[in-house]
Structure formats: C-alpha cells, structure tokens
C-alpha cells in the first residue's frame, strides 16, 4: 500500500502535487497535464508547473493496475495537516513582493502514515465518475476502455481536442515522439456525419497521423462487468501528393 500514488481529487480535478510521484507516473506512461502556474510569472501559460492534472481515464487505469489510489482531497489534506506541523514564514523579495513560504508537509509524513491516510480517504473510480458526470454513462466507460486498450499496447495518450479526437496516441514519451494516431471513440449505434469523416480524415493526413475510429464490438459483450472488446479502424485521405 505504501507504494500507491495518492491521486488527490479536488473538486472535479485529479491532481498530483509531489514531484517524485510525477516522475514515477511519467515512467509508467501517464503524462497528464501540468497545470500550475509559476509563482514568478503567474500570467503566462506556456510553461506550467506542478500540480500535474490527470484525466479520469488516466486515474482509472492507475487504480486498475494497483499503482495509484484516488483520495478525497479534503479528508486527505486534513489528515496530512494533523500529522505535520505547519510553519509559515513571510519572505520579502526585492521589489516589495511578499511570499508566504510553508514547509513541505508531505515530506513529514512517512509511508505508513500516508498509506493509512489513503485508506481512510479513498474513493472509488465509480464514485468519482458519478460525481463528475452525474450518473455513470456508457460513453465514459467506453473512453476508459479505449484508454486502457491503447495504454496496454504501450501507447502514451494525451487529450485529443486539438486534433478533433478523444485522444492522441504517441508511440513513446510525447517529449521524444510525435503522435501517430488520433483516436475517436464511438458508442454502439452512434451516428456519424460523413462531413466529419472528410474533416477528420483530411486533418489527420495533413498532420501525418492516422485517424482511428474505436468502437465496441457488438457481439462479444455479454456480462455487465466484462471488459468490452474493442475494434479499431484507421482512415486515411488518399490522393494527397
């Protein structure tokens, strides 16, 4: 249990504040999005820092693989604070800018205590899904299944909004590789506009990627809890010289 990475749920986001955890996640192939601004330049949004924000699909995969545990932010932080002592110190830098510096509370908590806190504050993936999306929806489950499917095949996944898909898949660390696939997840019987086919196929080919439609195979899912088996098709725009 001591090895589990606590994934802190604050409101609707899943955050990781500890740099060592971020490094471990990166090695596990979970990229997330750095979403903290830098204290000295809070307005810029090109270079972001801790915390790392994870998508629900990344978190679900980690929990599934027994690598991480989702914890409720409020309870988790309260208990961490109880154990550690919070010392505040005001430091003035040049230019009259004041910062409040606190000690790293996390490092004061040892593994055993942390594991206990995590057990206390744990929430399940399903509970979080309900909290985020109202009721549990098949689409989210399907997206999660698609994420697992590609992560298990050693693809690194990032959100695909800028390419008009649900995910983009990289053959390795996104810092080293360009992505190869744009994934679009479709539910069973979901209708699909042909103009979209043109748009997405064209876009994917223009950025030298394959556009992949991911769908659930209709025949092989009989039980509720069984993993849906997925089928993928890739689409390419022919005739570009």
């Amino acid at each position: 249990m001591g090895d589990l990475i606590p994934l802190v749920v604050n409101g609707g986001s899943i955050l990781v504040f500890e740099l060592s955890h971020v490094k471990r996640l990166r090695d596990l192939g979970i990229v997330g999005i750095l979403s903290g601004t830098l204290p000295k330049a809070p307005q810029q949004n090109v270079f972001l820092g801790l915390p790392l924000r994870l998508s629900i699909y990344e978190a679900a995969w980690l929990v599934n693989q027994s690598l991480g545990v989702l914890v409720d932010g409020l309870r988790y932080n309260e208990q961490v604070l109880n154990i550690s002592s919070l010392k505040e110190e005001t430091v003035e830098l040049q230019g009259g800018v004041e910062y409040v510096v606190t000690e790293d509370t996390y490092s004061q908590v040892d593994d055993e205590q942390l594991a206990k806190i995590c057990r206390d504050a744990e929430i399940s993936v399903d509970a979080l899904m309900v909290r985020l999306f109202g009721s549990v929806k098949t689409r989210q489950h399907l997206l999660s299944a698609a994420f697992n499917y590609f992560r298990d095949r050693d693809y690194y996944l990032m959100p695909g909004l800028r390419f008009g898909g649900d995910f983009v898949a990289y053959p390795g660390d996104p810092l080293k590789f360009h992505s190869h696939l744009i994934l679009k997840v479709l539910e069973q019987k979901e209708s699909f506009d042909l103009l979209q086919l043109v748009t997405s196929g064209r876009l994917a080919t223009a950025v030298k990627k394959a556009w992949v439609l991911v769908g659930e195979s209709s025949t092989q899912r009989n039980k509720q809890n069984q993993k849906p088996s997925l089928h993928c098709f890739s689409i390419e725009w022919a005739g570009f010289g």
Partner: protein
Amino acid sequence: MLKRRGKNFNQIYRNPLPVTLSVDKYGQIPPTSLANPVSWISLACRLLYIYSHLPPREELTKVISDEDGLTFSVADDQGSMRLWRQGFFGKGTLSRSEPSWKARVEQRLGLTNAENIASEDVTAVRRGERKAFKGLRQEAQKLEQLGRLRVLNEDEQARYKSLVDQMDAMRLGKETAESESALKDESVATDKGEPEDIGRKVQESLKISLVEEDDNFPVSELREEDRTLIDPETNTLRANLEALQLQKTEVFFLLFALDAVKVFKNDSSLLLQELFYACLGSSHSPDNKFLLDYVVYHHFRSLGYCARSGLKFGCDMILYKRGPPMLHAEYAVLVVRDGDCGWTDWPDFMALARVVGGVRKTLVLVFVECPTQEEFDEILLSELDRCALSRLFLRYKVTEVVYKRWSPSRTRD
C-alpha cells in the same frame, strides 16, 4: 488569391449567371448627344424596339432527374458548358470540377491539335514533380545517415552533392515561379507557379506520353476501351460519356430564382412545386436540411458569390469571389440551425477549423433562423407557386459569424 493568369477569362466567363441580357442580344444602345437630334431618334427607335419585344431568353437547359429524384444531371454538352461557364454550377462526373473529360481524352488519344490544359493535368504534373523531389530527398537522407556511421567514399560523396544540387535547383525553380506570380497560392488541391511555366511543363509531359505512345502503341494497338470510344470514320470520339452533375440547391436555384433550366423526370417536365417537394424529401419541417442549405445558398449567390459544395473541406459550402478558375475560394461556410448546433461538438469543430485554416480559408458560421412549424404548414397548404415560395424563404433569417482561432500567447504584446 489569384490562380492563373494569361487566359482570356473575361471573355470565356463573361456572364456571372446563366441569364441573357438585352445588351447581349441587341447590342449597346447607340451613342447620343444632346446637340444632335438625329441621335435621339435612333435611340428612341432602339428603345421602342427593345420594349416592344419580349426579354431575350436563351433556350432552357435540360436537367434530368433520376428515378428517386435525388440526383440531377445535364447530359448535353452545350447545356453543361453554359451552366459551367455562366456561374460555375455543378461538377463533371468524370472530372474534378469543370467537365473536361472529353477534352482530356481527345488530348490523350491525339485526336485534336488544340492545346488545352485541363486542371487535372496541371495537378498531375505538379504531383509528379513533388514525387521526384521526394525520391531525391529520400536518397539524400539515406546517404546522410550513412555519412554519420562511416566516412563516405568518393562516389557516394559525388552522388550526395549532385542530389543536393538537384534539390536546390528544384526548390529554386519553384520559388522563382512563386515570387513571379502576383499572389501565391497555398491551397491543397490547386495550382502553383507561373501559368506559362506550368503550361509548358504540361505540354512537355503530354508530348512525352504521346511520343511514347507512338513508339510503343500504334493506333491499332490502343486499349480495347479506347478503340471503342473512337469513331474510325471521322476519327473523333463517339460520345461524351460525361454529364454535369448538379446539387439539389443548384437545380432549385436555377429553376426558382433564374428560371434558366427545365427539369425532367421520366421524360415529363417537373413543375417548380414538384421539384420543391422532391428536394424536400420526406421531412416537411422548417428546419429541413435542404431548406437551410438553400436559404444560405441563395443568400450568398444573391450577394454575388459563387457558392459550391464544401464537401472536400468538410463544410457545407465554399464561396468563391468570382469562380474556381480565377480565384481560390475565400470562405468555408458551415450552416447551423439557430439554437441547435447539430453535429458541432467541440472536438469536431476544432478539427473543421484546423482543416479550413490549413487551406487558408476563413470559416464562416451561418446561423439560420427558421419560421415556426405553423407558419411553414400554412404556406405549404396554399398553392405553391413562385410567390408562395418567396414568402416562405423570406421568413428565414441568416446571420454570419466569422470564426478565427485566437491564440492568447501570440496576441499578447
């Protein structure tokens, strides 16, 4: 964005719509001067002549609708030529846009001496060039990689140098051609470079293919399908296999707004009302996709734009300032029913915006406000003549919104 120059476009594409003007038929009004009463008389005579005659009309083009009433085509050459040259309606079934199959086949089989260059040939030449360049680049990259592993021997070094020189020469040729042409063309499926230059290249490539044909395949050894095409007595093509295919909105515009065509189905002519119902399909609601599209189509046509299908860019329509041969389309139009965004959820929208941005067009969202179902039914119940249809279309309102990607980090000063 200007495409090609040097062609006599103003002559060929004189009329922006298939409408005959009195000037075309009767000529210019004679010059008059206030001081010369004789010129008044000739003017009066001419005016009297014009007003006493019916307005000039060209023969209506025959459009054939197929069994299910969903596709429309023009089979005769003259009609297709008219609809293409006067307003750029439709698309050749065997061509990219202008119905040029016949001209291309005649050129390929050497049946004509006319030097006409179809846009398809231009594209083929350009693609060939690009492929050759990519081949050179690949070989050069291989040598480069090899050079990192070990020292290249003399032959390899010489080969690498010549490859680099060739690639530079090709790049240079392209750049000069581009800088010479007044405005550059960046769109995906269109022509680059100087017209004369391209024309020369196309001619050369055609000549080469003809020479090869002469050497290897004499006329008796033409392909079976080519031989059936040629009439041996006159040495011309037996028939034009190509038809001009029209969209629903185009046919309806030609009939409803211009009265320039006659639509036939099973040899009987369709009334305006029948065509309307055929286009409408089974869903009789004011937000029928055909109605929304037509309202937007008519709107932009009446503003003087040439509107054509936007299928190849994943949108509903693209707008040309004059027409495809002269200028690239400037705008891509997405028709959105007011209050409902249809398929456009964010990822799809981002993809479309990227595609449209990638071909240097501006994305225009056109929101269409529809009349209520009651108003719609009321008009449909009355006799559906041109007046009633006009009343119906007047109830629609369109609003254009230009979409542009805004990047905060680039815009900040």
